[in-house]
């Protein structure tokens, strides 16, 4: 664990959130500084993906308690599109298909909308084409990919690469990757990881949500958090992920029991 005194990008304090009156998040605390990579691990149903969606502003989830500060703003005051414009990016676990809409059209609209909101230059279709092709090289994507409908008929790997391409275009301050490794073979995983590492710098931060250690071999986290039943129950450095891989999630409970036993 390194000591980082960079500015705080995200500060989550006692976050509680519900969907249809069922509480999923039950008091999350998390501080993310610029330049950091945080991994959030945990079993299915522990609330990892819900946390990602709440950060991104999914309308189905209601925050019932707690706060989220993002870059000195109250994130909960912002709509999903305002959060995106402000630099919060979620790479979806299951990217959504939009039949009939060319990927290039979608990417350009997203890029130009965000650029305009940030007071930056928008690109016309020709300029954008050059720009996006350059970014696509990073992810080893074929050019025909621009003409296909958004995510329609894409393989799992293509969908995930498309997510990282969008991240490359939108240059977020906070990138949240929700199980980006799921459904990827090892080659695709390496390409995606290379892309993420390339995009990561001291001015931004990344939250990786994953089940497995294997992604963390390629994108090395500064912190690993373990979630269970809507809370972060343990935080450690990158070695925590390795221990989880070796011993399984039950190990934490035993470990906590041991710790509890020792203290009495």
């Amino acid at each position, binding site marked *: 664990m390194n000591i980082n005194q960079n500015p705080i990008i995200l500060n989550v304090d006692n976050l509680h959130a519900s969907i249809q009156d069922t509480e999923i998040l039950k008091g999350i605390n998390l501080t993310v500084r610029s330049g950091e990579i945080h991994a959030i691990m945990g079993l299915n149903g522990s609330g990892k993906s819900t946390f990602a969606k709440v950060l991104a502003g999914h*309308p189905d989830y209601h925050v019932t308690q707690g706060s989220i500060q993002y870059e000195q703003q109250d994130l909960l005051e912002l709509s999903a599109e305002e959060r*995106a414009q402000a630099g919060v990016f979620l790479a979806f676990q299951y990217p959504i298909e*939009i*039949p009939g809409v060319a990927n290039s059209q979608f990417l350009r609209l997203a890029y130009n909308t965000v650029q305009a909101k940030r007071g930056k230059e928008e690109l016309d279709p020709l300029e954008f084409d050059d720009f996006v092709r350059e970014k696509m090289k990073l992810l080893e994507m074929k050019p025909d990919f621009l003409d296909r409908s958004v995510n329609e008929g894409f393989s799992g790997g293509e969908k995930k690469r498309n997510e990282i391409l969008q991240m490359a275009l939108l240059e977020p301050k906070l990138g949240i990757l929700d199980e980006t490794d799921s459904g990827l073979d090892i080659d695709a995983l390496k390409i995606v990881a290379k892309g993420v590492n390339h995009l990561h710098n001291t001015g931004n931060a990344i939250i990786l949500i994953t089940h497995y250690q294997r992604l963390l071999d390629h994108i090395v986290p500064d912190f690993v958090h373990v979630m269970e039943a809507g809370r972060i129950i343990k935080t450690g450095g990158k070695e925590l992920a390795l221990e989880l891989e070796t011993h399984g999630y039950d190990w934490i409970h035993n470990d906590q029991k041991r710790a509890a036993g020792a203290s009495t």
Partner: protein
Amino acid sequence: MSAALQNLVNQPYKHGFVTNIESYVAPKGLNEETIRLISAKKDEPEWLLNFRLEAFQKWLTMTEPHWQNVKFPKIDYQAISYYAAPKPKNKLASMDEVDPELLRTFEKLGVPMHERAALAGVAVDVIFDSVSVATTYKEKLAEVGIIFCSISEAVHNHPELVRQYLGSVVPVGDNFFAALNSAVFTDGSFCYIPKGVKCPMDLSTYFRINTQDSGQFERTLIIAEEGASVSYLEGCTAPQFDTNQLHAAVVELVALDHADIKYSTVQNWYAGDENGIGGIYNFVTKRGLAKGVNSRISWTQVETGSAITWKYPSCILRGDNSIGEFYSVAVTNHHQQADTGTKMIHIGKNTRSTIISKGISAGKSNSSYRGLVRIAPTAENARNFSQCDSMLVGDQSGAHTFPYIQVRNNSAKVEHEASTSKIGEDQLFYLAQRGIDAEEAVSMIVNGFCKEVFQQLPMEFAVEATKLLSFKLENSVG
């Protein structure tokens, strides 16, 4: 977009179309006398009067159809006035007098500047020289022998053509509303493309700046002689209002050997208010006869208006190797009801038909696709491909598909695909997470859904239709 603008799109436009002089309105009610009166007022030849009377006799024996998936109160046909002499429009003197809300609609729809004045009811020669533009068009068409005029003019100037083809595709007793139209139609359009002539422009361009009130029983007849081709556009994206609730039009197309007729419609009649009060009943019979070998009839429609839409633009593929196409987008919102589709009747050998139907239902509306594909015993090697997709917006709307397939020849190949999807929270959230707001997101999703149909529209209308759909669905999501 503002709620005001949305209201505008769905509401009657009251300014600029006010009538101040009514020359003559027939008493309400329908009987043989009414029909004789209409025919006399229009100074029609006897054969046309007989055509009308025959239709009326058939109509008397028919009953209003109720098999379609729409509901409406009983129509009192004796409470309608069936003849009104053309009413002069109360022209505005300049664009400054046009309701600014309407101008904003044009702006949003991207209606070309030179057409806005005409559409808004401004005396066009005051501002723009559109009249001379229209004259230029007319001269250009006449040069190549194309006849394009009102059907009343055609009855007088080209009686042999009208007499030969009127009712040849939609017989006077075809159905209840077609019979009514045949008995009482007052005007409409006539278009004749002579042998070998490719119409040098989309007739849409001409039509838009010459929009005329054709009344509630409109009659259109288009004939393409051997080797001729024409692209015709009816309607307009700007909202249209009419005090007549019932509209029963008939459109007949005839394509001879190697002829090609492309007929596009953008329909945005008043749809009623949010609570389903008012709105036009649009009961239309449209049919094209691909009479000659290698002929083609292609229908493209974007139906966004009317309280009730009931229409099945159809193709009778009689000529060998003839082609029938139907591309449709039907959007319903609030309490609108649409029961629309097509009929592809394969008679000739190697006839081919394509049906692409996209239904979008929002609010509490209901949209049905109803289509018939019939392969006659004579139609060797006939092919049909049908694709009917429905999209639901919100959770109170309905979409239905009623495909009828009758195959009487073993060599036929008929394919039907159907799908129903929903604009989900997830799609909107995905786009929001990329910085795109709900309005743009819906527009993008819907236009992606309708792409195959919009590609068939003349360019400038495709752009407007795209925007029109976004209007129609405004505030229906999220």
